[in-house]
């Protein structure tokens, strides 16, 4: 397994204990740059924007209850993203954030920065001015809606293919709720059929509705008798704890699929018609089955390109390191055991090509396959590709939450980032990730099959050339010393190469002279006969000769005198001869 180091990082402040899923990447202020949103169990929500060298969030909001999960998405189907933050008490807080350039406090902050700089200067302080950008404080959410209690997973996605986003909430009591945001006027609610009102009642929302209606009386006075609601569309029951939620696209119908993770590495796929499929078979052995049911499972779908076609591949990882890739197209599964000493948690898919380069997104054929990133409690992070090549990064301390996603460190560029939330109230953000999951390669592998055109030359220069080349093409690149030695010589001992060249050039010169003499002799002998073709040939040879001379001059500026070169060449020749004798 390869191990790497990540270098560029920044540390942010964020306190409190948190649910390892209460964070999200997304464009909360609709400026096309991704922000990072995180919430803790004390009800504090923080939004980070940009590099934030001082470590402070961009905006914060307090008193939001026991935040268990959050998501960023177009919950209102208005074309704009909101932050959706759900707490254990059954409240869903929705924040609409205005773009930063419309926010006056930011301008204020900039002013205070410059003024503090000035004041520091006037105090003749030798220290750098401490730039303390205070986060914007949001008094309260844009709106708070009632939802079922004890939700611990949230997903905003269109799961029925009607182009309208649903909110999917998973509860700790194995029930999944599918809700839709709706604007209802009071009259609408009153005019709902009994059945629909029953649905609302069953989802424990009636009391909230009543209070909401009471609240709305104030609004009525202002003429706004429209109430926002999350109306329940579906309710699904599961056998096991819902440990993970994700979506994918059906490779045949292109309709959306909801993926639900179940303990023990199990996956349930739900299509838009609520048809459930269970691609992971529960083992026949009841004992092993019991063992597995304890293990939490994470599910993520990632992109893979197969014959230029973009496909979703589902990655399933159990917290003890069983990694499975499920191919939706042919329903095939591949397994890999990740040997880990600490429990894993959290997984994300990441495309390494996107890093800061938006052009990639416009040309999907340039996109590579996604890799999957997972992290263990001790900070060990594993990056796995579709061929099960694994690269490890060791984060320096224990972590309580890990996030991997796209974030705009600098405006205008969403780049891949790793975020580690530790137990010391800090978030460490790694950006500009240089990750390559390919195994360690070597030069012989790169050159394999590439130098056939030089066969003739190399056969003369390298002892056992054919034998070694054959070994190389058979994948046995462990006995090709003569070839690598020659490559090394060509790259690092340019003197030898120059001498080799000089020797050849000199020999060519001599031969030419000889030929010319012979030719002249011939000419003398056959004076009466005219041979035009011969002289033509010679002319062209002369041309190439002068070219070669020029090249050599360019190459060996300030190079040594001919006599020394001869000596060296002689040595090389001797070496070659010696080798040949040895080989024989």
């Amino acid at each position, binding site marked *: 397994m390869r191990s790497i180091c*990540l270098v560029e990082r920044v540390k942010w402040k964020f306190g409190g204990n948190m649910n390892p899923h209460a964070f999200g990447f997304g464009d909360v202020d609709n400026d096309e740059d991704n922000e990072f949103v995180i919430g803790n169990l004390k009800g504090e929500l923080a939004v980070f924007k940009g590099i934030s060298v001082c470590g402070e969030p961009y905006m914060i909001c307090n008193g939001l209850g026991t935040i268990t999960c959050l998501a960023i998405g177009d919950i209102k189907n208005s074309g704009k993203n909101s932050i959706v933050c759900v707490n254990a008490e059954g409240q869903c807080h929705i924040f609409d954030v205005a773009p930063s350039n419309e926010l006056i406090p930011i301008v204020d902050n900039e002013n205070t920065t410059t003024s503090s700089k000035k004041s520091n200067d006037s105090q003749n302080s030798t220290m750098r001015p401490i730039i303390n950008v205070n986060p914007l404080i949001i008094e309260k959410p844009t709106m708070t809606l009632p939802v079922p209690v004890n939700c611990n997973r949230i997903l905003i996605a269109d799961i029925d293919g009607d182009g309208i986003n649903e909110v999917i909430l998973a509860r700790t009591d194995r029930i999944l709720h599918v809700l839709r945001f709706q604007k209802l006027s009071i009259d609408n609610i009153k005019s709902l059929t009994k059945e629909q009102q029953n649905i609302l009642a069953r989802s424990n929302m009636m009391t909230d509705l009543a209070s909401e209606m009471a609240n709305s009386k104030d609004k009525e006075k202002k003429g706004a008798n429209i109430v926002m609601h999350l109306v329940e569309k579906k309710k699904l029951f599961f056998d096991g704890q819902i440990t993970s939620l994700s979506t994918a696209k059906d490779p045949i119908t292109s309709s959306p699929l909801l993926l639900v993770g179940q303990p023990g590495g199990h996956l349930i796929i739900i299509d838009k018609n609520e048809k459930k499929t269970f691609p992971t078979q529960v083992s026949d052995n009841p004992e092993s089955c019991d063992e597995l049911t304890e293990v939490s499972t994470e599910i993520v779908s990632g992109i893979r390109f197969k014959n230029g076609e973009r496909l979703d591949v589902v990655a399933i990882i159990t917290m003890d390191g069983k990694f499975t890739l499920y191919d939706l197209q042919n329903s095939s599964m591949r397994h890999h055991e990740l040997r880990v000493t600490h429990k894993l948690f959290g997984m994300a898919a990441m495309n390494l090509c996107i890093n800061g380069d938006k052009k990639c997104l416009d040309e999907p054929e340039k996109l590579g396959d996604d890799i999957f990133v997972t992290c263990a409690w001790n900070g060990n992070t594993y990056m796995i590709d579709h061929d099960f090549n694994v690269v490890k990064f060791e984060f320096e301390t224990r972590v309580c939450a890990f996030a991997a996603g796209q974030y705009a460190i600098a405006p205008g560029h969403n780049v891949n980032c790793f975020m580690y939330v530790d137990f010391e109230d800090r978030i460490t953000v790694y950006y500009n990730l240089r990750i390559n999951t390919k195994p360690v390669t070597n030069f012989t592998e790169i050159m394999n099959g590439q130098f056939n055109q030089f066969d003739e*030359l190399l056969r003369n220069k390298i002892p056992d050339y054919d034998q070694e080349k054959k070994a190389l093409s058979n994948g046995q690149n462990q006995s090709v010393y003569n070839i690598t030695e020659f490559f090394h010589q060509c790259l690092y001992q340019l003197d030898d*190469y120059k001498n080799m060249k000089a020797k050849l050039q000199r020999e060519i010169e001599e031969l030419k002279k000889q030929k010319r003499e012979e030719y002249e002799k011939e000419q003398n002998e056959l004076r009466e006969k005219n041979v035009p073709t011969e002289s033509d040939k010679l002319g062209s040879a002369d041309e190439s000769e002068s070219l070669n001379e020029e090249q050599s001059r360019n190459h060996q500026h300030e190079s040594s005198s001919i006599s020394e070169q001869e000596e060296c060449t002689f040595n090389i020749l001797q070496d070659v001869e010696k080798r040949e004798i040895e080989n024989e």
Partner: protein
Amino acid sequence: MEVEYFNESHFSRFSSGGRTNIYGLSVFTTRLGSGLPYDREFPSNTSKCLSLEILTNNLRNRENKERIHQHLFVSSFYGVTCFVSAQGYWNTIDLPLDKDIGEIISMDVFSSINSDFVFALTTAHSGQRIIPDDDSQSQFSLRIYSLSDYALTFMEDAIFKIIGNCQSIRINFTPTQLAHTTINKEDEDCTALILCGNDGGVHLYIEEKGTKKWEEISVRPYFPFLAGFADSNSNILSLEIKEFQNIKIIAAGCQNGMLHVSISKRSESAGDFEQQEQSSVALFSPITSISIFKSSTSEKEEIHMLVTCAVEQAIVYCYVDKKLLKHPFYLRECSQHDSVLCSHIMDIDWDGQNEILVGTYGRELLVYKQGMITFQLIWQRSFMHPIYRISGLDLNEDGVEELIVATQYGVHILQPNLHKAKEQLFKVLNEIDALDKEYKELCT
């Protein structure tokens, strides 16, 4: 787009608590090759002992011993990690050193006339462990492990065997750099260990032929220039001795910032080196490394000397063999990244011109290329931890040299841009091939 000269292949972290220092890296050139096969876990496989199973089942055929191999040794406080190069891979070995030897200060690995494999360490003992009948002031020792067994089969075997064969010499000064050189003793070439210390002196140790024990000998007959420092409070931190055909250059950098250089030329009559010139300059900050190098890889070229300082930037003394210290060139960018700790010379783009690599405590690696009259920064790369040593060797024996960067907590192995190497190789091959063909055409 910026050219990436190197990409990180692997980061090998020292076992817990390990840290290296500026004397903690050594490249061992030997005829001993690797004997262990490719491991499935490569490159993170680490062996701590040679299991019999491996020995009997997987031992690779003994290779032709004529071939030269280079292996890498890196020390961390309590241990030494060895990277044994093999074709297409390398094997990592944690040396099973006795914990009682103390903290490792400096290290050198080489082969001498008598021994195929010599592994020398200087160590500092913790205060409590003082042997009663010993000089209580002496906390330091020089430990020399050696093997002269010509029947050695392969490198890994040698590494595990050498641990058992150790000679320990108590030293009563704080050791710094440990190096080796060849001296001419009684008309015979012999390999000597050079140890610098805080007593201002340079100590020389040689192996007695009969007893095979290492003993200290006087420096003065061999290095009168270095012997001159014994009285002063100079405390040599870094020492470099280089020979180029008829010129021998000795440079010593001291803790107090003094840099001394001496040039000797081989006298035509006696065939021995005779000191010609020497020069000193005060740089006012501890000198962390010295590299004397030729500007190009070819035979006749200018000789420069690169000196790095803890506080000031790195300085190249151009044409040091002729102009001594009169032509300094400052590598300015280095001063922006804290103390400059190490340097290395390597042709990173295979054009025959050597580049300068500089590593800093500020975690930055800087690469300079020589222009017409200046050195220009062409590439830089940040690391996670302070950089203590840089080196280059062909660790996977594929013909291109890997860059080794030893940072505080581990060793980074970086491979050069292999596609660029391919382009360069093709350029060279094409040229030779064209000439070769022309030659053959003319022959027929």
